[in-house]
């Protein structure tokens, strides 16, 4: 597959999005079978939430989508994941390319502690080597504007990123991800380390970002899934139990296990 083909170059300006499909995905940590034969479609320009109790494989599932899963020693994945029909596990594809096209935001804000606010956002861009001076500055500004952080930090771009508040740090991390212009953004419990105000701000941001990106968000917080997601996936013990429109999952789930989970009877 060629992830930098013509369809990609126009996407930042238009709203044509990209669909991620996992088929018969199985993921393992050594002998432990963490994700069991999951088949799921993450539609373009939508937010898909993945909910489920701790250890149900939801983080592992998203980490398979940008191949972060294989960073863990002894971990492997089988089955296929495609981006607009292109297999991201194709041996001909460089794994770093996959990760630039499919960005990720983590549970705890993790700005690079030795870098300034500016350098944090520029970190991913500089790897290309071509971006310098004015161009780089513009891209950094765009990314910070996109996450609503520009007005808060424009006078202190040279200050360390870790000097920001938790919520600002998380938006900085999202800016860092957005700056390299990915097509898909994976978020692994992005608000679990934030206070309610920070959480609200990130949720608003997710809503704005979905016009440009396909977003998959893992969350422990069912209210959050209800607030931000177009559709919701419920996982249990590595299996995908149910995937449907969010309202349906929370009000008329088809599966009894889903109902018990969303009504707080277990988990």
């Amino acid at each position, binding site marked *: 597959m060629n992830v930098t083909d013509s369809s990609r170059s126009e996407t930042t300006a238009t709203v044509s999005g990209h669909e991620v499909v996992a088929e018969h995905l199985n993921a393992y940590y050594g002998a432990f079978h963490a994700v069991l034969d999951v088949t799921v479609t993450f539609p373009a320009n939508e937010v898909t939430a993945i909910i489920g109790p701790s250890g149900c494989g939801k983080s592992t599932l998203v980490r398979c989508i*940008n191949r*972060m899963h294989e*960073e863990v*020693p002894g971990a492997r994945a089988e089955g296929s994941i495609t981006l607009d029909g292109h297999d991201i596990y194709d041996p001909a594809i460089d794994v*770093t*390319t*996959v*990760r*630039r096209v499919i*960005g*990720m935001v*983590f549970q*705890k804000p*993790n*700005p*690079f*502690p*030795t*870098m*300034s606010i500016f350098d944090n956002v520029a*970190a*991913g861009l500089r*790897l290309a080597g071509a971006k310098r001076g004015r161009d780089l500055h513009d891209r950094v500004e765009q990314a910070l504007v996109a996450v609503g952080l520009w007005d808060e930090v424009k006078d*202190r771009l*040279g*200050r*360390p990123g870790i*000097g920001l508040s938790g919520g600002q740090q998380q938006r900085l*991390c999202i800016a*860092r*991800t957005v700056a*390299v212009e990915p097509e898909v953004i994976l978020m692994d419990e992005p608000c679990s380390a934030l206070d309610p105000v920070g959480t609200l701000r990130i949720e608003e941001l997710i809503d704005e970002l979905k016009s440009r990106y396909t977003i998959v968000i893992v969350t422990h917080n069912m209210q959050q899934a209800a607030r931000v997601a177009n559709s919701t996936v419920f996982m249990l013990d590595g299996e995908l139990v149910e995937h449907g429109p969010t309202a349906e999952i929370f009000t008329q789930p088809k599966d009894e296990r889903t109902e018990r989970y969303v009504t707080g009877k277990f988990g």
Partner: protein
Amino acid sequence: MATAPPEANVLLRKTAGTRRRRAVSRAVDVVCTVAALAAVAVLLLVIASVAVKGAPALSLRLLTENPKVSPFGGNTGGIANSIVGSVILVVIASVIAVPMGVMVAIYTTEFAPPKVATGIRFALDILTGIPTIVIGVFIFSVLVVGAHQSGWAGAIALAIVELPVVARSDQEVLALVPRALHEAGVALGLKRWRIVLRVILPTAAGGLITGAVLGVARVAGETAPLIFTTSVFSNLGLTTNPSAALPNIPVTILSLSESPSPKDHAQAWAAALVLIVFVLLLSVTARAVHERSRAKLRG
């Protein structure tokens, strides 16, 4: 647990068990505090005794003049050539050992499979434990026999002593860099070497400097590896060419202390003081440099 229905005053009353636990806790507290104080006291005692015994012979002449043997035996000059020689030896050793140590540490923490990393760590621990005189003999047999003593041989022997100290210390430091930063880099699509260069090393910089200082401090006073490799000085003058045997402080301390002249003994103490001050200054400077670079970052 009491079986009778408990009343509040019964619950809160001290029992024999509570008293015993409190006594044990106090005892552990005291023993650990004493151990900590003893460790600091040893350091202070060593520095104080060297300072007291070395200060009388410490003079500008000692630091700036080369040795002069008087007709009655004993050195009436200084130890300038040894100071210069020691600096050269330690610099060459560190130029070899510090970058290598950092690279070994990067390899084991970032690139090596877990089993290989464990093996390397074990090997470094053994290397640290090898008596330095054995390293001296080894370098003697490889580089000195059939040739002659030289600063190179001495510096390489010191580098062998320094390498595992630096590598092990740097491994600990690199292992402390949060995994999350590594993941952040990977998720941005950065190549591994770039993550190491741009994220891991800058984050760990302070600890790496400390590791280098530890290594330098360790070898600055090493004597055994030098006795075999750079201890026979053809002249008493200043030598800066490492192809010849370089006079150095540890060997000079040794030979001065073996002299019958009490004045030489005083000089040996003064030379020891110079060595200690050198190591202390180095540590303090390294800390200051590190603090300054961090302060700059904070803006």
